[in-house]
């Protein structure tokens, strides 16, 4: 079956512009995660959804970052007024149930000029 997909695969934007990153999880997966992977920084947790609600938003770096999930499926991560330090690969993962492994998408590489 289809895995986790993300779009776009690459996004180049100018500082100050808003961007939207999309994640399509595996059908039926209740949990959805957003992570950020920067060079030399490993995986940085951003936000986690269980269904449509976000029990943990503690990783969002600033109020410029927001995310939503609708219908227990697709999620959108929005970054407003992008800054150069937002440049990174944004990874989405989904999982089902307790102690379930996460399946990762290929990521969106964001470059802020």
């Amino acid at each position, binding site marked *: 079956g289809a895995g986790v997909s993300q779009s776009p695969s690459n996004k180049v934007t100018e500082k100050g512009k808003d961007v939207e990153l999309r994640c399509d999880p595996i059908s039926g997966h209740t*949990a959805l995660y957003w992570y950020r992977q920067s060079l030399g920084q490993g995986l940085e947790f951003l936000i986690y959804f269980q269904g449509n609600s976000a029990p*943990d938003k503690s990783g969002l770096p600033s109020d410029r970052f927001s995310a939503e999930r609708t219908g227990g499926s697709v999620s959108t991560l929005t970054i407003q007024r992008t800054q150069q330090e937002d440049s990174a690969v944004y990874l989405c993962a989904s999982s089902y149930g307790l102690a379930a492994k*996460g399946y990762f998408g290929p990521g969106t590489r964001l470059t802020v000029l």
Partner: protein
Amino acid sequence: AQRVTQPEKLLSVFKGAPVELKCNYSYSGSPELFWYVQYSRQRLQLLLRHISRESIKGFTADLNKGETSFHLKKPFAQEEDSAMYYCALPPFGNEKLTFGTGTRLTIIP
């Protein structure tokens, strides 16, 4: 809150030598742990999970509850093992899937 610690950011090992990637965890319950791997230009993928007691690509990991560790081991490193490795605790209740900061393993030919 649950936490995963990988003390080594970088690890270089000669081909054929043993490999050990360290992982320590903090968790109040009875944990299940994962190791994820990301090869160059590939997506992050599950390598192994402790509950399966499996050996994948020659790697094994034993859960040591006394030391709260889940170190990843391989007796003889191969060049294709060069990658980024992440230790992780799965979601439980409202806890999220929690990753360590990762270790970049480089196998020297």
